């Protein structure tokens, strides 16, 4: 479970694949079906963003522990055009693609931790985590 699961994202089939792997990992990590769905939905939106803006990239999935909490970590990386204005990109309804502008803000609402690192012209990395309490 320490290992990172790497899912390439370059087509709509990969979007489905990425969210299914995420759901499986969440199940293995002990998340209930509600949280599994939430994690899968967030991965779907993030993977879709990679396709839309960068054409290709990858999603790394892993499980981590922090004190009495266990978490699923989703890292989405691409070498696309990057995001000029990260603050606006996570606002509802803001889109430069003609989409609904719900992808990033929606994924942020679904997950507990959400960070974007982006360098224009070099790419974007979105790191998001969902936590659950470990009962001793």
């Amino acid at each position: 479970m320490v290992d990172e699961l790497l899912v390439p994202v370059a087509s709509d089939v990969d979007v489905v694949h990425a969210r299914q792997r995420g759901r499986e990992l969440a199940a293995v990590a002990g998340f209930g079906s509600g949280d599994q769905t939430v994690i899968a939905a967030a991965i779907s939106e993030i993977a879709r963003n990679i396709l839309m803006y960068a054409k290709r990239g990858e999603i790394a999935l892993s499980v981590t522990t922090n004190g009495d909490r266990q978490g699923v970590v989703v890292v989405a990386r691409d070498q696309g055009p990057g995001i000029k204005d990260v603050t606006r990109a996570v606002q509802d309804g803001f889109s430069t693609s003609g989409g609904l502008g719900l992808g990033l803000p929606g994924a942020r609402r679904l997950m507990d931790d959400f960070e974007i690192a982006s360098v224009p012209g070099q790419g974007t990395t979105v790191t998001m985590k969902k936590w659950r309490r470990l009962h001793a």
Partner: protein
Amino acid sequence: MEVPILKQGQYLIASIQSALTDADLSQLREALVERVGRFRSRGVIVDVTALDVMDSFAVRTLRDIAHMARLRGAETVIVGIQPEVAFAMVQLGLTLKGVATALDLEEGLAFLDKQAQGRIAGKRIQGSIDHGR
């Protein structure tokens, strides 16, 4: 994977069996809009019980199906949205505004039957007004 579409009387029933890619969803949209014309259908049911995730593209495509079918004279009802899927949809800010939904296939059929009755009743009223002239 192609979604099977059953014709039942005046209705079309699309029963999604497994996870769908964007291409599958677009294909379903084209197939339904075409068949509404071919079979002169008055109602469309899309059963999403088997979908374990609905993201922004899936929701937008379902909305498009409903609006396009309505432009072709058919009412659409989406049935079988699972509770976890509904929760994630709301968190994502995704809505099916203007699209009828029902708990399951049975409720969906009942909804379409009621809509059809409403149409017949509407015609009768229209007819009696014409007679009065």
